[in-house]
């Protein structure tokens, strides 16, 4: 386990260098999408339409912010529970998505798609939305504006702190770390 700095978008080679348990500072462009946006993207793909952004080599942050005060890029901006996106995730990974930032467990289907495509699942600290907002330099709604907090946003982040939970080999920190501290 070590501290690493990465820039997004990144390719499969970078993804494969990350290990479950690594503490990573993410810099670059990422996209927000949560429940309603995933549903719409999935339906768009089913109808053979284009997605609102190029998912290849990109990272999605499962997050719906609170409103920004004047002069600030964003409000509180911590991760939401990733498992609600599990139904839609394998398809996005097969289209080239290389990373997801959220919190909580994933299904085995998602884990297999992560391994198959050489991607990474990161956790950000849940409930630390004020702190995490400080790593977001800019935010712009690029699609599904009518969804309010659930719209797709393009974020510029600098040294956004995250932890590799599931790496490209399928190692899962939620399983291994708990074993280390289990008593009785």
């Amino acid at each position, binding site marked *: *386990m070590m501290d690493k700095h990465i820039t997004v978008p990144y390719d499969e080679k970078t993804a494969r260098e990350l290990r479950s348990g690594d*503490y990573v500072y993410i810099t670059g462009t990422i996209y927000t999408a949560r429940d*309603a946006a995933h549903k719409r993207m999935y339906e768009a793909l089913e109808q053979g339409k284009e997605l609102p952004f190029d998912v290849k080599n990109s990272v999605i942050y499962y*997050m*719906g*912010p*609170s*409103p*920004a*005060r004047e002069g600030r890029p964003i*409000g*509180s*901006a*911590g991760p*939401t*529970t990733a*498992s609600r996106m599990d139904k839609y995730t394998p398809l996005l990974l097969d289209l080239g998505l290389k990373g997801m930032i959220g*919190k*909580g*467990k994933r299904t085995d289907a998602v884990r297999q798609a992560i391994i198959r495509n050489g991607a990474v699942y990161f*956790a950000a*600290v*849940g*409930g*630390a*939305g*004020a*702190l995490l*907002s*400080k790593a977001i330099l800019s935010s712009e709604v690029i699609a599904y504006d009518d*969804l*309010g*907090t659930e719209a797709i946003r393009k974020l510029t982040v600098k040294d956004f*702190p995250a*932890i590799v*939970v599931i790496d490209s080999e399928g190692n899962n*920190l*939620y399983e*291994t*770390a*708990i*074993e*280390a*501290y*289990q*008593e*009785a």
Partner: protein
Amino acid sequence: MRTICVDEITRNIKEMCIEANHYLTEDMKIALNQAANAEKSPLGKQILCQLEDNLKIATEDMIPICQDTGMAVIFLEVGQDVHVEGGLLTDAVNEGVRQGYTQGYLRKSVVRDPIYRENTNDNTPAVIHYDIVEGDQIKITIAPKGFGSENMSRVFMLKPADGIEGVKNAILTAVKDAGPNACPPMVVGVGIGGTFEKCAFLAKKALTRPVNEHSEISYVREMEEELLQKINQTGIGPGGLGGSTTALAVNINTYPTHIAGLPVAVNICCHVNRHCIRVL
């Protein structure tokens, strides 16, 4: 008979929605600090320190502690010698929530219909629990509830024969299943007894009790202490990333029940266990 105007209720509810989302109560801050000092995992300690930093930033910069500013759960204990003037009490409460969430830069997370899911854009309606009590005051408790942890909450309709061990197992099962999804360290609210809906209400109300206070019933107090220890031995840890701090408190409320039943509700809250209390 004392008269309270609905405008006063609306104004207080508005302020309380904003306050609860930016400041935790002192007992929660102390519990987090103690946990950060005692945590065995280096990563777990780092996460707990970040949660303390997060609280500081929220207060100083007026950024909500968590982006999920919740569905507003409101307990109203209305003295039977109070006369509410100027409109409907429920409307006044919802107007306070509307003003608090729209003017306070809080997230609107409520959808009008559970299936069609159109956002109401002002976080109303609130979930309001009324109780008629003695006296000529109104006690308001606001507890904005985030759904990361709400989704991991459970009701178990146990059999009387399952007894106290069955209750303990149910609580541990709910916590283990919740794991990282509920943003640990959690506060675990438990309701035992009553009916299906009463035990859920008891569990929700238990979350508003200070985390450094125990039940006055001795066996319940012992159960709270034992379960907290067992939960912290699961290894789930801060953020679910391993460690010795999985919960900050287990708060249990009980109520008489039926000869045929032993209902148990486990309402899990994340470390952002928000509530704000005022007496008018």
